């Protein structure tokens, strides 16, 4: 599956680069493809979260205080539909790109931390995390190409550094807790990205009512 993902990513990149060269592929198709990628990314994160919960029921975690906010919470994103629909295209894309960029490092931390997890199906988790990384990378590349077709505002990428460090904890409970927390933040952010791209897609497809 990882192989397929990388292949899909390569195909996606190739197509997008060709589009950039030829300007033959309309932006609606590009957005369609990007939203498919983001959909897949969010599905992967949801599956991973469920798998983690199935092995480690959150009973123990509830004892501890909930960790602080996600590292991407500083980014101002729309919080309801009206707000979201008022955001211009370029800004939406910029938000999506920023969020995606913010998760490159934390996903690496998750990937390296997966080895130390006391998990029975550790390899499965590891595979899925690596898949997440690949999918995220390919989507980021596609969005970079898309941004070139939009306004200058689309080029803005907000810096959202991850300051959690490489270590996710010492003891088993805290490790699991942090792991779960990071995954939940990622799940939300991937959903944001997906929603923004789908809004953009429908905005660009005004002449194709069947899509939206």
């Amino acid at each position, binding site marked *: 599956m990882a192989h397929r993902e990388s292949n899909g990513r390569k195909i996606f990149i190739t197509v997008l680069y060709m589009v950039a060269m030829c300007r033959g592929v309309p932006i609606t198709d590009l957005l369609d493809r990007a939203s498919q990628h983001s959909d897949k990314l969010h599905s992967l994160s949801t599956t991973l979260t469920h798998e983690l919960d199935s092995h480690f029921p959150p009973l123990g975690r509830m004892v501890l205080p909930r960790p602080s906010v996600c590292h991407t919470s500083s980014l101002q994103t729309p919080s309801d*539909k009206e707000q979201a629909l008022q955001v211009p295209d370029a800004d939406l894309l910029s938000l999506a790109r920023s969020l995606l960029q913010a998760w490159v490092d934390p996903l690496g931390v998750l990937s390296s931390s997966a080895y130390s997890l006391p998990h029975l199906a550790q390899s499965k988790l590891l595979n899925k995390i690596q898949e997440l990384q690949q999918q995220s990378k390919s989507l980021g590349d596609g969005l970079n190409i898309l941004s070139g077709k939009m306004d200058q505002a689309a080029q803005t990428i907000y810096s959202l550094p991850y300051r959690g460090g490489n270590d996710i904890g010492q003891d088993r409970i805290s490790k699991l807790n942090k792991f779960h927390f990071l995954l939940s933040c990622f799940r939300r952010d991937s959903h944001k990205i997906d929603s923004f791209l789908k809004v953009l897609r429908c905005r660009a497809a005004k002449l194709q009512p069947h899509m939206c």
Partner: protein
Amino acid sequence: MRNVLKWTCLLLLVGTPHAEGHSPPGKPTLTSCRSPEKETFTCWWQPGTDGGLPTTYALYYRKENSDAVYQCPDYVTAGENSCFFNKNDTSIWVNYNITVVATNRLGSTFSDPVDIDVVYIVQPNPPENVSLTIMQDKGWPFLRVAWQPPRKADTRSGWITLIYEIGIRMEHENEWETHVAGQQKLFNIFSLRSGGAYLVQVRCKPDHGFWSEWSSASRIRFPDYFHREKSTWIVITVFCFFIFLIVTWLLHVNSHRSVKHCLLPPVPGPKIKGFDQQLLKNGKSEAIFSALVVSDFPPRSSSNYEDLLVEYLEVYVPEEQQVILEESKELHSSCFKSESSTSDSDSGRGSCDSHTLLIDKGGQSKENEDRPVRTEDQVEAEDWEEEGSDAKEDMGGVDVPSGGRVKTWPSVFTSPSDQQISREHCLSDSMIMITEGVLGPDPSEFSLSATKPAVAQLCKPVKSRSDINISTFVHKPWSVDSDGVRPVTEDTTAFLQPFLLQERDYSKVKRVGADNTLLLQRLADVADVDDCEDQTISTGIDLKTTPVCMDSIMPGQEATSAYVDTAAIFPMPTH
């Protein structure tokens, strides 16, 4: 006093409910929270025991990263034991921590808190306006299902992306057949049963959410396209009928005899009597030939003789001539090895053993070459047939410079081992035959009887005869080459013993002389028979020698070429 009673009654009244079972309310549980369009959401809870007292429920929530606790704004809209959050109160991508509190007079009970994010609890309403239409596709009808997304879901702006699914079943069935339609809002269903009644329903699901409820089922009756099906059945029936006919015919043919036998008749194999194919495959030619010889050729019994002979030529000769014929026959027979004779190392080309006493018209023994593997019977028959034909041809053409019609016998009898057999062969068949051509001008003088008794008679030794003048029955000059005159099979060919020292033309056999010699008259000396005696042919017949101008060939020649060794004949037993 009264105050004490009052307080006691009050205490009793207070204490009584405990005794009757009133209790604080049981723990309520939040069953589910759902958002139909990602803009509002509703939460439902299940109340616990009420403790026998009127209990009120309250829902409190706290947003993520905020400590402010709010109470449910709307307990009514969504019905009993529910809380409805409208658009203003709903924030997405924000965790809600929700708790329900049950309160009665005796106390309150909190439920377990639940964390929800609105975007993860989306379950839309069922699709609306499901319409069923019968459409035609080149005469074949199909069903088109069309619907609208739920009213509240905003799919136009892309806020919600819905995927649809259609369920269809026949009215009398129980199981639904589902088809995923993706994001489109219409779907075509083909291959429905003619005249069937169907129920169709649709449901939808957001990209990351829960399936909606099924829409209310719509009923439709598929039209009858019965006639088309009927014509198809007619075609199938006719086709099966033809198949049935063909199968019946095949069975009928097979019952009489094999179809394969009918279509591909077997090729007749070779049927050479005594011919062993295995020997041929082994490659031992000698063995093959010996095998051929071993078989019943020459025919021993008299009964086979008639099978071998094709034609008979009656030859009546006067006594002398008959003797001569017999002698010549004996000569021929004597060519075959007798018991007293020495071994014949002749190659066989002209030896008596080889039966090759016949010279072809062209001087070739073409039969020799192309009949090495024929059976004896075939060989004989063919030879005789050819001779007969040749003889007939030669009836008119008298002039045969090459010496008349003689045929070469197939050289299958050339092996030394054949000598024994060939001896008997010679005796058993009458080989004194003179071609009609040779007989030519005076056929009436004699007729050669190649019947079996005559042969037998002829094969008898004629020692008693003497001075047989055989010149009378030899009119036709013929040349005798080094190979000699070869004996011809049966009827129409005259055969004389092969051999001869010199190639000369001899017109006839003058007589059989003593010392087993056959006197041949030279061509030039036809008129002058008694002039000289050139040669004598050693025939092995014990005859008086008569000085004639004839060449005689000594028996000693037999080693070199064809010869007549009549000496070998006499000792041989007669048959």
